[in-house]
């Protein structure tokens, strides 16, 4: 299943400056794995050392945050589905 992933400015250094990347994946999880397999520099910025999406990394399927979808990252994808990586910015003094 070919789907599109929209890449935010800060992460385009790892996709050869492409704002949109086409990947194969049957689920959101599979598509994200395909993305970071092809563009391996993205992996450490999207996922923590245990492989979970970092807290400030949001992934939208269309207009829906995947964290709020019943099947989450296991949500199946239709051909031509659009995923968007939307980072939050966060921080603060220790």
């Amino acid at each position, binding site marked *: 299943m070919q789907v599109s992933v929209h890449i935010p400015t800060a992460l385009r250094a790892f996709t050869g400056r492409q704002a949109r990347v086409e990947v194969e994946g049957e689920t959101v999880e599979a598509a994200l794995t395909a993305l970071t397999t092809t563009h391996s520099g993205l992996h450490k910025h999207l996922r923590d050392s245990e492989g979970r999406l*970092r807290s400030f990394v949001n992934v939208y399927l269309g207009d829906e*945050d995947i964290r709020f979808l019943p099947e989450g990252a296991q949500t199946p994808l239709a051909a031509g589905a659009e995923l968007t990586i*939307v*980072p939050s*910015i*966060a*921080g*603060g003094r220790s």
Partner: protein
Amino acid sequence: MSSRIERPKTPSGRTLSVSDPELRRLHDHAVRGYPHEVVGLLAGDRSTDTVTRVVPLENETADDPARRFRVNGLKLMRAEQAVEADGLDVVGYYHSHPDHPANWSDTDREQALPDVAYVIAAVQGSPSPHVSDTQGWRLRDDRAVMLHQPVIPSE
């Protein structure tokens, strides 16, 4: 008072040029927001590390706003699309550290995005709120430290 870790300023080899009026806007925002942290977007030209527009954003953190900031994804995306529609690049982000140095914290580093500048303005509350220091940083690619990218005011 939390413990302060004095970190060496590891150079990034880059500076960040911020136009004078926009740097004043950033400082005004930081002072106005005291004792809370403020946050905003830095727009300009990525290829020359130049900031020509400062866009204040709302600190949406649900917990301690004197020590934390957050701007949620969709609001941030809309703000970025607005500056990109004007032909500017997203160069980075800024936030304030009320009564705390302008050095990066582990919280800042853990949540930092790569390949963008982070400007931190230290705001001292006494005798009246004022910006005492402004420093720029960027995440090293291995995420282990943030590198120093000094802020240079420009005409």
